[in-house]
């Protein structure tokens, strides 16, 4: 299939602002789906509420646009009830880790075969630029006019700590690398998390002197480096990209199949 066949062009134009990274992330995701040769009828995309959560409307999969923070809970029911489906869950940073934090850690713990894509723009875009649990200190937002002092979650450490068997971080600047990470995440048997640093020029860049979309992409280039690289070692302040965990562990739906087999024997 050609990539545009995965798109519901009937519902375009999309709602994302000029310079938003989410379109780039969607592009990378669809190219990955194409590379994997997945049948769109075998894919369910589940989302919550926020800019990134509008993604399902635009893709020609089975799509479920739910409640703020709850996407992984809905997705868990979908996956558990039909394990043969590929379940993709795009989430925003507030969606995934503020209101949805509990569902996030429990999805990691269960190791259910779902791919969570955390589109991290460090801001609540849809509601007009309030800070999120991934903003970190020193960020100006509409609810932090004197700059934030809230520490940020490290999504990778949180996911690994909660039991995710695959966790990786990429950016919308490093698109080829992002596709490789998504490919591994979707192919991985178990819960996979891909954090995507995705610029929000409208609400983050404008208020935090990061400029427009080009300057924000340049920021991603200058401030991130590959995990395990010499640059990372020499500059601990750089944000690392790459795979933080990739382990084979019992997958949740497969474990349930064993319970089913056991009750059949009895």
């Amino acid at each position, binding site marked *: 299939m050609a990539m545009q066949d995965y798109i*519901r062009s*009937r*519902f375009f134009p999309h709602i994302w602002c000029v310079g938003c990274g989410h379109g780039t992330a969607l592009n990378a995701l669809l190219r990955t789906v194409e590379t994997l040769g997945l049948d*769109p*009828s*075998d894919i*369910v995309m*589940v989302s919550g509420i926020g800019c990134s959560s*509008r993604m*399902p*409307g635009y893709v*020609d*999969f*089975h*799509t*479920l*646009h*739910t*409640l703020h923070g*709850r996407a992984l*809970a*809905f*997705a*868990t*029911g*979908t*996956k*558990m*009830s*039909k394990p*043969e*489906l590929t379940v993709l869950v795009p989430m925003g940073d507030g969606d995934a880790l503020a209101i949805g934090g*509990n*569902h996030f850690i*429990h999805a990691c713990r269960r190791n259910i075969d779902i791919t969570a894509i955390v589109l991290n723009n460090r801001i609540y875009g849809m509601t007009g630029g309030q800070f999120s649990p991934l903003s970190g200190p020193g960020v100006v937002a509409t609810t932090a006019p004197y700059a934030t002092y809230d520490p940020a979650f490290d999504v990778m450490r949180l996911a690994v700590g909660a039991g995710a068997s695959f966790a990786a971080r990429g950016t919308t600047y490093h698109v080829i690398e992002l596709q490789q990470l998504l490919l591994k995440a979707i192919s991985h048997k178990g819960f996979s998390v891909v954090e995507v640093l995705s610029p929000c020029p409208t609400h983050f860049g404008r208020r935090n002197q990061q400029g427009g979309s080009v300057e924000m992409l340049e920021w991603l280039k200058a401030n991130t480096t590959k995990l395990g690289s010499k640059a990372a070692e020499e500059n601990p302040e750089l944000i690392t990209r790459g795979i933080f965990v990739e382990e084979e562990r019992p997958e949740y739906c497969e474990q*349930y199949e064993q*319970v*089913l087999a*056991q*009750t059949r024997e*009895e």
Partner: protein
Amino acid sequence: MTNNTNNNTVFVQGNEVCAEAALYAGMGFYAGYPITPSSEIMEHMARRVPATGGRFLQMEDEIASLAAIIGASLTGHKVMTATSGPGFSLMQETLGFAMMAEIPCVIVNVQRGGPSTGLPTQAAQSDVYQARWGTHGDHSVIALTASNNQDLFEITVDAFNMAETYRTPVIVLIDEVIGHLREKLQMPDPDELEVVKRLRTAVPHGVDYHPYLPREDGRLPMSDFGDKHRYNVTGLYHNMWGFPTTDPTVIDGLIHHLVDKIENNLHQITRYKEYYLSDADCVLISYGCSARSALHIVKNRRQRGMKLGLLELQSLWPFPAGLVREKCAGAQHIVVVEMNMGQVVHEVKRAVDHPERVYLANRVDGEFITPTNIKNVLRVIMGRGV
């Protein structure tokens, strides 16, 4: 459940009856979070669901539980969750989602005393209005109840049938007394009770399928996630493809559809029982556990020549106002018996011709309302003192 005879008569607890009835109705997916006094439903499901080839999930909270069953309903399963007051409070936003996205599902609320953590192991019937108006925004809802095991079985099957027929969440609103009461149940034979199958679309693959375009009869045939029709489901106002819209015409049409599909079918949804109503000059109206004491006092007073009757409601929402009005037309006194500070009594007052004749007999201390409690109210109403 203990099967003690060959004729399928079992001695069981109400919560177990509810669980077995769900399986009878074809439930294939259960997700929940334990909470007293509903936990036995989930425990029973944990044992029985895998054995019937279905899927069982213990989620991290009640929000996730309702979300998970909605996610499973879309792949074609009949689904259920069960909870009690605090958990039902947590579910309200997700309940509204199920209404808006028109997802068939059944939610059991085994009521306990509230507000807040309240009385975890004691009885109340104080979530009647929460079932109606707990989630935000305009909507309509179906809530059913029962006062004994036999009725609970049938009402639970009805709940699944209505969820499928109207594509909506249905609430089974029982209480701690009914949930924990052990009594006889005559297990219905397979095929004895009607079981409504999911209505699936006949639109062939390759033809544009409109998941949110109601047929002339108001019903919307579904297509399972994983099948060939791919469509969008959202909690936003949406068009016939399920895509978000702010078009005023579409919004107006959708909210009317959501309310009308239930309110216009009030007669099909209404469930009730009546005892000695034909000549009653005093009508008791009750439901759930309270109806047991109400029936006891009716039978007891009839022996003494008092013209007492009972209207037992088994569907609380949509409220059967016309039925109540008709059954109370000849009554000098109408006494609503319920275990709350007065909820159904307000609906009865709105329904009848003489609201000044409507009284409340209630009990709100966590103890089961007794026939004596009701008798005392009757004596006061009739000017005889207690």
